[in-house]
């Protein structure tokens, strides 16, 4: 069994009887002391004796203790989810981020990165094939604020590649339905639905507070409008596009990097929509998730990202090509 920092805090506050055992090596205990909790120093081989009390096992990230409980088949024993890392973060700001422990144990993310995600606002323009998977994975990963912009209603032909929606949703607003489903993925998420199509008249207002914009639209004209606002407002934009079995991703206008206009010229033209050219459901899921990954990297400051590059993915061969678009010979 596991116990979250919030639940353990409640045990302490209510005076529940339990035994806490810290099984970390001395060096970890020295560098990362536990606050607000009396814990017996123990080892995996020498756990404290107890009568009927619950046992709470504590390690640095909550991984070893989960394994220990299974391995020794311990009854009435709990592993502190996220370990001391999550417990101490909870002591600092009363925010329980332990559900993201599998992310926060990554040294590139840690609690600091998770807090940045929690504080961030990502705007997704287009809640279709790219927008749905991007929104799902961003919500689940702990992004605190999502803004969804789309004026379309759900159609039967959307369902094979837009897994936030089902047959009962046909005719309903995409962003309204998406909001409800996304909140079920992460109750800490604040999500705003903008049921309208982004254009030159409303784009500035809609995008002004975003930390990152995900371009999940289906036409060049709207991509150009987003690009212009992204560039002038200095808000990075993660472009994604599809053609049959192929996808494109780029990070645009990031720290002065190239934008859509640079990559495809101001008078860019061509390419059919998914409705015209067709698309297999998995392809937008792959590309939308790469967009979400790049957005998270921008928020956390994890480099390198796809700024100055255009990623080309082929779903038939699984070949990827990364073109340097920031270089003009």
């Amino acid at each position: 069994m596991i116990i979250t920092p919030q639940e353990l805090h409640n045990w302490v506050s209510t005076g529940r009887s339990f035994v806490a055992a810290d099984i970390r090596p001395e060096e970890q205990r020295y560098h990362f002391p536990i606050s607000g909790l009396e814990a017996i120093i123990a080892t995996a081989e020498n756990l404290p004796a107890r009568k009927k009390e619950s046992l709470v096992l504590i390690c640095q990230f909550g991984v070893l203790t989960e394994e220990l409980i299974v391995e020794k088949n311990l009854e009435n024993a709990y592993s502190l989810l996220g370990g001391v890392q999550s417990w101490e973060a909870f002591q600092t700001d009363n925010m329980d981020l332990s559900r993201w422990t599998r992310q926060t144990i990554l040294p590139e993310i840690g609690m600091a990165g998770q807090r940045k995600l929690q504080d961030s606002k990502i705007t997704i323009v287009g809640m279709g094939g790219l927008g749905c998977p991007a929104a799902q994975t961003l919500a689940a990963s702990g992004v605190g604020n999502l803004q969804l912009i789309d004026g379309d209603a759900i159609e039967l032909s959307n369902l094979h590649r837009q897994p936030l929606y089902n047959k009962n949703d046909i005719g309903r607003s995409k962003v309204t339905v998406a909001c409800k489903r996304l909140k079920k993925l992460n109750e800490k998420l604040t999500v705003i639905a903008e049921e309208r199509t982004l254009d030159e008249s409303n784009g500035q207002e809609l995008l002004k507070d975003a930390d990152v914009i995900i371009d999940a639209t289906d036409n060049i004209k709207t991509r150009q409008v987003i690009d212009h606002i992204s560039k002038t407002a200095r808000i990075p934009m993660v472009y994604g596009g599809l053609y049959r079995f192929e996808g494109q991703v780029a990070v645009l206008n990031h720290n002065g990097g190239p934008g859509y206009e640079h990559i495809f010229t101001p008078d860019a033209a061509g390419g059919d929509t998914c409705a015209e050219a067709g698309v297999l459901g998995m392809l937008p899921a792959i590309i939308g998730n790469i967009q979400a990954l790049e957005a998270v990297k921008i928020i956390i400051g994890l480099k390198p990202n796809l700024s100055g590059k255009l990623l080309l993915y082929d779903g038939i061969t699984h070949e990827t090509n990364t073109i340097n678009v920031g270089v003009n010979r």
Partner: protein
Amino acid sequence: MKIFVKCFSQVKYAVGTSELALDLNPGATTADLETMIREKSAGALDDVTLRTAVNKDYVSQPVPLEDGDEVAFIPPVQGG
């Protein structure tokens, strides 16, 4: 000289293959190659913007090609 061409998205479908190996005369440029590709597409790329990369670096102006160069033609795509 031998030039290797990579065709993406609409270009791939317009010319019928994702990769080509072409023999070009010395002095040929990326613009010459783009003309050849557009001719091969029989009009399917007439209204399509093509960007060109040589050995994975974008070129914004025509540049002379060298034996063994890999040239990619990349159109914008709309789908989302």
